[in-house]
């Protein structure tokens, strides 16, 4: 009962935002372009939260996050395209299935690579990301519906403001509750000192694997939402540079800080698109001068991330 109340209290503002967003956008009160960007920001935040669990909390340096995002995207899209129709319930199931697919692959990848530490793990996951890009490029060879290098079309446009906002809320809730529990402390202990964590009785390999799988599940679900937002998937959306984008968001927001990830996701997406509007058309590529400068300055001024160790009130430990 208490658990349900807590859930309701946490999700209420998100539900309200979802309702308001749906009404506003269907009434045409806001520009559809910006509505879409807003949804993309929510989706990016879900994926980045996943990477924060992996890198920020468990300390596993992963450079292959976009690959898991892609697995979720293609997985969910394939399910919807082939047998989903327009069913909202089936859409939800497809998203979760996409997440589960990404989690399963993460488990297999983790089994073989998580014996590696720090930079070495980064290289291994980078390699996996490149392999997956090649798989996506040639996916039409084994499943013509996936489109391969020509891109995947015919995906129903199912993602709306409501889905994006509700999934963001649910992800924040799940991440917060997990992090502020004995399991979360075990993950952070591994990040802080793996030898000491092992000496304290924590099965470090098992928990590193678990942290990796959970984080990739988030990425997979986010990928599914992304696929049904633009109704088009292309392998270039899941290459190495997309992994770096998410990594940048997590580091910019602050490792192991959920509020930072949330703000940095929205900041990153809106800055990227905002500059597209703000800059004169001939100077749009200046974005790639301004943004890196901003990144350098932010890191110099706030090396611990935007938020350091402070969290928004709703993301703090609610159990005390």
């Amino acid at each position, binding site marked *: 009962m208490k658990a349900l109340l807590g859930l309701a209290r946490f999700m209420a503002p998100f539900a309200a935002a979802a309702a308001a967003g749906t009404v506003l956008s269907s009434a045409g009160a806001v520009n559809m372009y910006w509505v879409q960007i807003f949804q993309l920001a929510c989706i990016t935040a879900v994926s980045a939260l996943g990477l924060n669990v992996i890198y920020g909390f468990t300390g596993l340096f992963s450079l292959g996050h976009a690959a898991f995002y892609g697995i979720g995207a293609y997985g969910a899209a394939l399910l919807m395209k082939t047998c989903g129709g327009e069913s909202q319930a089936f859409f939800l199931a497809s998203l979760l299935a996409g997440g589960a697919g990404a989690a399963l692959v993460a488990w297999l990848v983790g089994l073989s690579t998580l014996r590696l530490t720090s930079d070495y793990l980064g290289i291994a996951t980078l390699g996996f990301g490149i392999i997956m890009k090649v798989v996506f490029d040639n996916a039409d060879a084994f499943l013509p519906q996936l489109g391969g290098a020509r891109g995947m079309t015919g995906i129903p446009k199912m993602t709306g403001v409501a889905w994006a906002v509700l999934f963001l809320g649910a992800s924040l809730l799940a991440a917060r509750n997990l992090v502020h529990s004995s399991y979360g402390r075990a993950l952070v202990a591994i990040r802080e000192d793996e030898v000491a964590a092992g000496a304290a*009785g924590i099965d470090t390999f098992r928990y590193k694997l678990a942290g990796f799988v959970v984080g990739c599940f988030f990425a997979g679900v986010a990928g599914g939402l992304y696929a049904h937002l633009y109704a088009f998937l292309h392998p270039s959306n899941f290459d190495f540079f997309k992994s770096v984008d998410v990594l940048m968001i997590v580091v910019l927001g602050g490792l192991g800080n959920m509020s930072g990830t949330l703000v940095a996701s929205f900041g990153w997406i809106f800055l990227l698109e905002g500059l597209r509007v703000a800059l004169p058309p001939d100077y749009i590529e200046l974005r790639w001068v301004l943004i890196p400068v901003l990144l350098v300055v932010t890191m110099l001024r706030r090396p611990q991330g935007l938020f350091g160790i402070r969290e928004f009130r709703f993301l703090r430990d609610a159990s005390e």
Partner: protein
Amino acid sequence: MNILEASGLAKNFGGIKALNGVDLQVGVGELVGMIGPNGSGKTTVFNVITGIYRPDRGTVTLGGKRISGLPQHSISRLGIARTFQNIRLFRNLSAMDNVRAACHPNVRYGPISAVCRSEGFHAGEREIREKAMDLLSLFSLQDRRDDLARNLPYGDQRRLEIARALASEPDLLLLDEPAAGMNATEVGKLMEFILEIRTRYKLAVLLIEHQMRLVMGICERIVVMDFGEVIARGTPREIRNDPRVIEAYLGKDSKDGK
């Protein structure tokens, strides 16, 4: 009866024989000291016992059960806890969370329960919190519970590390130079403290230490190591007068006065 028995432990690092046939016994509830010059292999013995290294030869048994070759966390759960020579706290966690993290192996709720914040979660967290608070109070760290470990003064960090070790409910506690960097008063307090926790938690303690006052003062038995071998063992009185020990520490007496 012995709780810990190590026999014929050998460990090589490349060409260096860090351990060369070490035998070691610790009785139930016994307080054993391990001394020896730097590089004699004391910490390597700890690392082999706790599973950080796998011995090249030899076996370790805990309460009659063979533990050598098991992973670190399994050995910890079977009842061996340790501290480290160069303090290894979870530096960016609070004092409270350092202890709570070590309570994790006995957690009573599952991850799903944690995400859903079920009744079981709250009950389990309450239990962990109480246990951690008890340990912190025992070490007079209760007022520091929300401070990050890396911000604690050196002495508090040393004590917090012992508190964390006790959180995993060991039968045998390994202390690697617990008095390093402490002044005479602090060493005195630490000695009383080790005796107190041993009685309270019915622990056997094996400790490495260079401060002879501590080793001679509280250890019931002492093992002396040099060049990866045990060169002497006995009561503090026997060790103090053992010519091999004096030689290992001070060098051989030169008969012809050179």
